[in-house]
Structures are given as C-alpha cells and as structure tokens.
C-alpha cells in the first residue's frame, strides 16, 4: 500500500516512539542507575460519563452540544448538581479535566433563568482571565449574546469601565483589582452587589501563604459589602491536587465547603522520569550543572520534533536556558523564532503571541517560569522538562500536567539540581510518587495583614459594633487604629479619617506594590519589561547583567526613587549574581527552653519569637557562562530593607562550643553548613517554598532590646580566624520571609527534635567528603572540615540513636503537629 511506503520522517513516527528513543539514549549512558533514578509509567485512564442534569436550560444544552459537548464527565455533572443545590463547593481535579464547565454550567444556567443574576470570577492572574473570557464568549455567541461577560482589570481602558459595570453579568477579574478597583468603589457596582449570586475562585491552591492570607481578608471584605447590599453569594472553587483542598477552602471562605475530588476525565499515557545529573567529582559532590543538563534533555526532545515546555525556577535561569536553546536551534531564515521565553516581565501582547504560537505549533519550545504552570490554554505539548524541583509536589504534578493534556503519550522529566531538597526527592522517588501533595496554609489573622485590610474595610463601609473578621473581634483593633489617626468613632461605628486611599498602599502579593520599569537606552528609549520591587534589588542593580528575551543588557543606572532601571544592550560572556546580607535582632522571645526535651543537659537553647530582620544587597559576583567561574565582583550601595517577622532559633552555648575540637573558622563554617542543611530540611517539613524561609546567624545579644545589632553573617563569613571574636554564643535563625510572619516559627520550635534528626541524616547520608551543595553547602565556600564540624554540632544537639528506618515515616507523621 502506498501509505506504508511513505518515507519514515520524525513526524511520521508516533511521539511515543520518539520519547522512548530519547529515554533509551539516557539509559545507555547510565550504567549504575545513578542518572535515571526513577522511570514511572502511568497508564491511560478512560472517561466516566454522565448526562446533563435535567434542570439545565435547553438553550445552554444546545450551545454546549454545538461545541461538541453532548454529555458530561462524571465529576462535571456532580459539581454542577452540587452548585445547583446552592452548596459552597471546591472541585479538585488535575489540569485539563474540563473544570471550567463545572462552574460555567451552573452560573450561566442561573443567568438564563433570571437575567438579574450576577457573578464574579476571580483568577490569580490577568492572563488566566483573558483565557477564560475567550471561552465564555464563545458560549455566549452560541446563546445569541444573551448575557454580558467582561474582564475588569488594570488593562481595562477607563472609557470602557462604566459600560462594563452596567452590562456585565459575569465579571472576570483578579484579587488585586477586586481589592483596589472594585470594593472601594462599590457604590458604582450597585447592580452587581445587589444581585451577586456566585463567586468563582479558580486555581484556589495558589492562594496560600501570604497571598492566601491576603485573599482571605479580601473575601471578608467582599462578603461584607455583599451583605450590605443584601446578598449572600455562593462560592464555587477549583483547585489543583493538594493535600487539604477542603481545609484551605474552609479557611479562605470561613464557611463549610463540600469537596468534590472524583475525576471522570480521561488521561493519556504518561511517563515520569527523574534525572540526576552525572557526578563529575565524587569527593566534592559536584554534579554537572543541572541547567546545562536540562538544556541537553530538552534538546534531545526538540531534535526529534517533540514540542517541549521547559520550566525554570527563576527568571535568570529562564533566560539562560533560552539563550542556550536558541543557539542550539537557530531561527530558520524568514521563519518565526521556534524557541521562546515566557515569564512575568514580558509585556501582555508578547505573551498572547507566544500562547498562540504554542497552540498552533509554530513555536516548538518554550522556556518558562511558573507563569505557565497555571491553566493558561496553550494546547497540549509532547514533553515537559523541569530544571530543578519546583519546591512542592503539587507544583511538580501541575507542571508535568502540561504535557499531553488530552490524548497521545507524553513524558515529563525532572532534572534535579544539587540543592538538598532536589537530591532528596530524586534519591527517594517513593517519597514523591507515594505521598500526597502538600498542605496549603494561610494565616489570615497575621496582624500586619489583618489591620491593613481592616483599614480598607473601614474605607468601604464604617465598621459597626460586633463586626468580626473571621473569628477576630475587631473592636480592639479599631480602637488602636483610631488612636493612630486612621479611624474615628462616631456613635457606634468606626469611620475612615484619612485623605489617602488605603487599598493603594496594600499589595496582596509582595511587601511593596511598586514595580521597576526597565528602559532600554540602546536606540530611542523603549520600555522592555518590569520587575517587582523585591527582585529589582537583585536583578537590576547598577552594573548587573539583566537578561530579557535571551538578550543581555547592562544596567547603566537604577533610579531608585522613580522606580526605573536604564539598560543598554551588550554581548558579554558572564552573568551577575547579587550578594545579600542579613542581620537579625530579637525583639521579643515568645518561648525559650533547653534544646532537647529528651536530653535536658544539652548546652543549647531553642526559642521562637518576634525579630527585626534587616537585609541589604551589598554587592554582586560576575559568573562566567558554561563554566560558572567567578570572574569578578563589585560593591553596591542600595537601601536597606527592614522587616518585623517571627523566627525560630537555636542558641549554641559556650560549653557546647568549647567541646568542639575545631579551629574557630572551622567551627563557624560548620555553623553555616548546618544552617544550610537545617533550612533545606525545614522546607521539607513545613512543605513550604524555600524562599519563604530566611536564614541568618547572629550573636546572642546581652539584652534583647539592645540597639546594637547582632554580629552580622557576612562579616563573620569574611573574618579570618585571628580577627574573629574568641567567644560568642551564636543564634542560628530560621525566620519567616514575610513581615509579621506566616506562622512557621512555632511549628519549627515544636518539631525541633525531628528537624535535628532529619538534618543529621541528610548530612550523614551524603557521599561527599568535605561538604557539597546537597548537604552543608559547596565545599569551596566553607573551611575544610566544615562538614565534620556541622556533624559534631548536630551530634551534641540531638540524640543520635534514632533509627534510620523511621526516617520517611516521621516526616509524614510530622504533619500531625500542623493540625
């Protein structure tokens, strides 16, 4: 037959064969099984169907039919039914299981039955709202545009806003816009609030930590305003798979929420591979650069025409990998760029362009930060490569889900970095594959967050007697706000008494709401992107090499006051990495005891409490591409950042230090190494992002309120042994990297023993001789014998008789102390 005579091209072979080719290639180089530490196959799953519920409006059923949806997946039917019964629900399903139908069906059905009905859809990003708009528009057109649906966010032109307020039945927006643009102007939205029936929260799992704590308070305000207009809206939430969706939803909404976690959607066959870069120096524990290896893996896929998405954990790495991959896949003359980057700093049009290119297959590869982790529709890709463990099990599955969304066969590869957490995950694949994803936690009653939202609430509507924010009776806080001049009590109510607009000064996502604009001065000045305040200090300081779209720029000038960075295009063979230093001062100790419950004689203390953290970017290193050599450094004078937060810390007392058979500098290096390992293990125990925890070492000051700062970490690190103070009783801090704290300190304090034991095991189990990035940190940064010293300190800090076989179990058991 003529078909069988067709030339065997890459495109003609099935993707599954080509994926197998690549994996076989890796397996060939991996004789000891050290590289491919896990290869797991997940078989395809068939769909579970259910009919449309009988109450669905015939026109809506027709509209879905016209889109090719004649029946529902079982979980869609169950969700629609529960929503129809006016329950608050959270739907937990993986990517691409048709979750949007779960909320669109009941909401649009209600609108068709009663055209007064209004709904708010909240998405964590503007891009997701745009994506949904297209979907609902399509449905609406098939219903003769019977209802109004619009996005309302920072990009909405001001002349269109009035019409949108009048005409939308469904408003697609984000928490930030709700917070600054809608709630403080609720009188303009009377029609919406008087008829608000549904609030849809998509990607619920993103609302955890600081962002979630803020959102919880925004929802408190939203419900308050809705109640004012006589409405009690119902919530429909969707979440990716996390361990506690019901608990998270319950905490965010502060009401009972029904969890629907059955999934009736079909899934394609999938292979999940853990890839550990080969060891190049066993003694130093040095592996090949995971960035280079991830590029290598991606290139193997791209070469075989497999559409590939590459995830990096930082903007810098996104740009680095983009540069490498673009060089490996040069643009065809006259053709479009086949490899593109995608991250937050790109302008909206550029991003829409990339999304389209991915859907229609023009773009063969994309390198992205977590920006593409969420449900933006870019179609299905063949393979996903993750450079570095994304930090949580949930995010890893979410990213892996980007490959093979509907059909065919797909492959996800996790390339481990030498960070302790990554190494732990790839060496213990059962931990990843056998465990539930992590818990998401919020701390909405963090005083800093709560009070800021209380101000916003008072601006929106005077605060009456007996009003509560969740469980918090806010009368006392209002009295304090009145004392500080923000509120004034008239009769029984507290009113806002400032000219300023409080929501403007409260950012839901980071400490400050300012973004830095990046201006390219190479030709006529053009804005090429934005960076948020916290990363600005480390990425666009003067003399930094800022990489955008694979192009390098030299930062000529950082205008701190105007929030502008001026850059010029350059072509150099290095990138820059900022050096930050941190000082911690104890403000108030909430609890302090002997370090170990079982060994009361240990000369060490553990504590937690309030601290003041000062940090500053003081310089930068120049690092050569490919070889990662340090080829120079510079000093910087940037403003200091100050934050009150909570911290857990260990104090090593003089007898303990004196008992260590090491030189002072070895001892100090040992402490830094220990802290490095402690932070990694704490991240695992807390199931939090590594960036949520900060570390520092400081001297225990004689008086807690002494204005003098504790000896700072960087100074100590640079001191040689002669200059170092003969004795100090150091504090090793693990602090919450958010003003006010997000509640990690007390659990760490309580889990002290587990933390010590796990850390000890991490270091003992590591095969390196003098320290490596996987345990106490790279050997080059530390004095010789640092690893030994760290272990010696640990030996004195914990009971070394814990049975190693209990290792994995205890970590999962340790969830107990979080409830």
């Amino acid at each position, binding site marked *: 037959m003529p078909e069988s005579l067709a030339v065997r091209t890459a495109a003609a072979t099935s993707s599954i064969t080509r994926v197998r080719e690549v994996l076989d290639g890796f397996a060939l180089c991996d004789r000891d099984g050290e590289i491919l530490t896990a290869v797991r196959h997940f078989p395809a799953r068939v769909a579970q169907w259910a009919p449309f519920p009988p109450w669905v409006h015939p026109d809506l059923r027709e509209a879905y039919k016209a889109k090719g949806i004649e029946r529902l997946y079982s979980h869609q039917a169950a969700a629609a039914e529960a929503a129809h019964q006016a329950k608050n629900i959270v739907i937990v399903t993986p990517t691409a299981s048709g979750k949007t139908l779960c909320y669109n069906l009941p909401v649009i059905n209600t609108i068709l039955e009663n055209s007064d009905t209004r709904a708010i859809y909240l998405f964590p990003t503007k891009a997701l709202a745009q994506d949904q708009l297209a979907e609902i528009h399509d449905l609406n057109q098939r219903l003769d545009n019977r209802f109004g649906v619009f996005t309302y966010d920072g990009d909405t032109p001001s002349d269109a806003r009035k019409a949108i307020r009048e005409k939308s039945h469904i408003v697609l927006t984000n928490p930030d816009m709700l917070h600054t643009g809608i709630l*403080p*102007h*609720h*009188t303009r939205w*009377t029609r919406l609030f008087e008829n608000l029936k549904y609030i849809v929260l998509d990607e619920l799992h993103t609302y955890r930590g600081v962002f979630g704590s803020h959102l919880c308070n925004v929802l408190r305000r939203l419900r308050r305003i809705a109640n*004012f207009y006589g409405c009690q809206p119902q919530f429909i939430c969707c979440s990716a798979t996390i361990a506690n969706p019901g608990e998270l939803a319950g905490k965010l909404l502060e009401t009972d929420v029904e969890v629907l976690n059955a999934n009736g959607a079909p899934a394609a066959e999938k292979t999940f591979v853990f890839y550990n870069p080969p060891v190049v120096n066993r003694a130093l524990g040095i592996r090949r650069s995971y960035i280079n290896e991830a590029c290598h893996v991606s290139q193997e896929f791209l070469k075989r025409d497999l559409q590939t998405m590459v995830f990096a954990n930082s903007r810098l790495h996104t740009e680095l990998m983009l540069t490498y991959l673009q060089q490996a896949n040069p643009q065809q003359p006259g053709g479009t760029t086949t490899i593109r980057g995608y991250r937050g700093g790109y302008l909206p049009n550029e991003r829409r362009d990339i999304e389209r290119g991915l859907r229609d297959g023009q773009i063969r590869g994309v390198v992205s930060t977590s920006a593409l982790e969420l449900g933006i529709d870019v179609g299905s890709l063949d393979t996903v490569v993750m450079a570095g463990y994304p930090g949580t099990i949930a995010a890893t599955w979410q990213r892996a889900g980007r490959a093979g969304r509907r059909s065919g066969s797909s492959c996800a590869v996790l390339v481990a970095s030498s960070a302790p957490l990554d190494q732990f995950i790839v060496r213990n694949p059962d931990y990843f594959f056998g465990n539930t994803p992590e818990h998401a936690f919020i701390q909405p009653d963090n*005083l*800093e967050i709560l*009070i*800021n939202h209380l*101000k916003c609430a*008072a*601006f*929106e*509507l*005077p605060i009456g007697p007996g009003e509560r924010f969740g469980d918090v009776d806010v009368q006392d806080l209002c009295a*304090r*706000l009145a004392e*500080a*001049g*923000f509120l*004034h009590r*008239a*009769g029984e*109510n507290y*009113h*806002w*008494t*400032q*000219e*300023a*607009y*409080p929501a403007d000064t409260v950012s839901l996502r980071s400490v400050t709401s300012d973004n830095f604009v990046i201006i390219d001065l190479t030709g006529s000045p053009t804005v090429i992107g934005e960076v948020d305040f916290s990363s600005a200090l480390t990425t666009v300081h003067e003399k930094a090499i800022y990489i955008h779209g694979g192009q390098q720029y030299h930062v000529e000038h950082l205008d701190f006051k105007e929030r502008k960075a001026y850059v010029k295009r350059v072509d150099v063979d290095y990138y820059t990495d900022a050096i930050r230093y941190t000082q911690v001062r104890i*403000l*108030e100790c909430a609890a302090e005891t002997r370090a170990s419950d079982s060994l009361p004689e240990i000369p060490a203390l553990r504590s937690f409490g*309030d601290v003041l953290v000062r940090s500053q970017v003081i310089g930068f290193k120049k690092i050569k591409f490919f070889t990662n050599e340090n080829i120079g450094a510079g000093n910087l004078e940037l403003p200091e950042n100050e934050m*009150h937060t909570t911290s857990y810390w260990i104090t090593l007392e003089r007898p303990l230090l004196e008992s260590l058979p090491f030189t002072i500098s070895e001892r100090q290096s040992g402490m830094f190494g220990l802290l490095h390992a402690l932070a990694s293990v704490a991240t695992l125990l807390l199931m939090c992002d590594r960036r949520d925890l900060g570390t520092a070492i400081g001297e225990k000051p004689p008086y807690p309120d002494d204005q003098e700062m504790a000896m700072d970490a960087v100074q100590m690190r640079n001191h040689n042994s002669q200059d170092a103070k003969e004795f100090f009783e150091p504090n090793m801090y693990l602090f919450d990297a958010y*003003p*006010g704290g997000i509640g990690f300190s007390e659990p760490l304090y309580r889990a002290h023993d587990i933390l010590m034991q796990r850390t000890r095991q991490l270091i003992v189990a590591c095969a390196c001789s003098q320290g490596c990035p996987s345990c106490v940190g790279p050997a080059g940064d530390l004095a010789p014998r640092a690893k030994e010293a760290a272990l010696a300190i640990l030996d004195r800090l914990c009971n070394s008789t814990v049975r190693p076989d209990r290792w994995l179990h205890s970590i999962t058991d340790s969830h107990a102390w979080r409830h």
Partner: protein
Amino acid sequence: MATLDHRFSRLAALKPARPPAVRSTTLREPCEEDTMARLLGAGVSTNRFGEHLAVRNWFSTPEFVAPHSTCLQLLSQQRDEVISRRARTALENPEKWLFLDTETTGLAGGTGTYAFLIGLAWWDAGGLQVEQLFMRDFAEEHSVLCELAARLAERPVLVTFNGKTFDWPLLENRFRMTRSIAVPGLAAHLDLLHPARALWKFRLGTVRLTDLEREVLNPSQLGWHRQGDVSSKFIPQFYFDYLRGGPPEPLLGVARHNQMDLRGLAALFGKINALLAEQTDPDEEMHGLDLFGLSKFLHRRGDKGRAQIACAQAVDLGLPVEFHSRAQNDLALMAKRKGEHQRAAEIWHEILADSGDTIHACEQLAIHYELRVKNYERALEFAHRACRLLHTQANHANFFAQRGMARREDLSLKRIKRLEGRLSKRTGKRLPLGETRATGTV
C-alpha cells in the same frame, strides 16, 4: 497588656500616617458641643435621621441675575444630551436653581470620602441666600443628606463648579451608602467649570474659582475678599482634628471659604450669562483672548454666526502672536464653511505673509486654487510648499506628531500627482521630469 502594646507598637500598619498632631489642651467637653454652633452662628437642625448644624446667611452681592434664554441654550447644549421639556422649564425658572459646593475629607473619591460641609445657595430677595449644612460627626451624615434631598426636591436644578466630576458623584455615593435615602433626581445640572475653562483658559491658563474672581470678575465690586482664605489642601486635616476634639476655629475659615466659593459661583454665572447673552457693559474693556475663547465656545456649542463675529473682533482687538494665527485660521475655516471662499483665501494669504501656521495655509490654498479657482499651477506651487514645510518640521516633531504629518504629506503628494496629471493633460504633454523635480526641491 504591656507586651501586647509593645507588639502593636511595632506594626507597620499601625504607624501613624503623619506625626501625631499636638493635642490641643482645650479638648472639647461633651457639653461644649455647640461652641461650633455659636462660632458659626448656626442652629441645630433636626429631622427624622437626627441632628446637624445649619446656618443661613443672606448676602446682597452678588445680585440676582435673570438667566437669559440664549445663555441657557448654550450652557445646556451638550453633544450627547437631549434636554427634556421638564429640564427646560426648570432651567428657565431661577427659583428652581440650587448652587452647590462641598468641603470633603479628601479628593481621592471612593466610598471612604465624606462631604462634611455642604454649601447651598439660591437667589432670594434680589441677593443670595446661603445655607450651610455641617455634620459635627459622621453620625450626622444621614441627617445632612436628608436635608439636602429636601432642598433638591424644591430646587432640582444644580449649579456647580466641577460638580459633574467631583461633588455630585461623591454625593451620589453618600446617598447610596445610606441605603435609606434615595439619590435625588436632578432636573438639570449646569457645571460652570467647562464653559469657564473654554472662555478663559487662553488668558489665565488655570481656571480655578479664585483665579476667575481675581481676573474675570471685578474684585472691588464683589463684596468679599479672599484675604486669609484657607488653602484647600488643609481642609481635610482641619476636620479630622476637629473630630478628635481639636479646636473648631480652623473650621470657621473653612465655612467662610465655602461661603465665598458659593458667592463666587453665583457671580461667575452672572458674568457668563452676560457674556453669552451679549449683555456686557459696553464701557467694559474686552480682552482679545476672552473673545477668542468665546468664539471657540460658541463654535463648539453650535452658534457659528456669533462665533465668527467674536473671532473677528478678537483679531481686531489684537492677540498675542501664537493666538493671532490660530484665530486667523479659524476665521478662514469659518469663511470657507460659509462658502466665502474668496474671503478665506485672502486670510490664508495673510497668514502666509505673517508666517503663522503656514503649512495648513498652504494646504488650504492648494485646495482653494485647485477646486475653486482651477489655477492648477498655483495649486501645485502651494502643494509643493506644504510638502517641503512638513518635511522640515517633521524633523523636530515627536513620534505621534510625525504620524499626523506623514498622513498630511501623503495627502499633499496625492494632490501633487493629480495636479501634475491635470496640467499635463491641459498642456497636452507631460511636464519634463526635471522640471517637476525642480519645483519639488525649491
């Protein structure tokens, strides 16, 4: 409690926005509430929502002016608003008018900004009756709003200065926030900011009410002076201080300020009325720029005839250089639209002689000679000249201006091509290439 206080003292969210004001030693006693009333000369007014302070003062100036129908026609004519019969009847009856100006707790807008002093005024016995409603505390807001609703029911024509974008939307918010007092319906709303801006921005630049009082109205005849007037930016803080037991005296200044604003507003209406109804004092000296502003305003509101007259008068009175050529240009365009093509062409020639906006003049003359006079040689000459000028000027323009220039250049180039075609047809042969080039580069 001490540690709790300590804890709170460190919260950034509780840091006072400005250093705490030095507490006045004379904190108001609860029984002393009415110092404010005494100082203002106000009485406590009561309605079903509670109490507030209200004070009325009658002023002989500004004197009543009957609104002229021409003026009303011009003021109420808006592009997208069709004026109803009810509105017209109400407008024509000055007894239905209510001047309004508010003092607020901020300019940010939104639901947390309050109007603590609502100043109202209406014509009465040949002069102006001013009523000020003051809330001594937020609890009195409903009572104040209820009173305002009652006044508006009686006098549903609102006259304000910037009230369309600021005062009225803010009050609408306040009414909505009560959930019990409906937003009063207005028969009409005259906002004098826009006409005032159109009329006087050329001469004054900024058109704040105080600027207008000083430069447009006759300060010596106003009957009040702005000496020691409160600066607007301090007003919210004066009120916040008062709420927290601070002295009431600064608010007296605010009340006086509000009073003067209301009287200024009424006086300003008199001025605009006279100007638009052509009832200005013949002895009064007119500014050329004011006439130019008037002409622009009349033209926008559809009175083309008077616009042309005012513009011509402005030119005759003499205008600063940059406005002279703009006025000339307007005159020429108005003449052209009326079909007075010869007159228009003369003005454009004048502009060329004065070296005003010569590009536009060249373009217009090219059109004129092509379409009216059918003198293609001259038309071609002007079209080329326009092109050259555009080219030179584009070098100094920014990106957006350049886009406009590019469009105009295209038009001129098309015209040149068409004219060359016509000329070659008329002479029966194509112009030699060299000659075209030569004209193009002169």
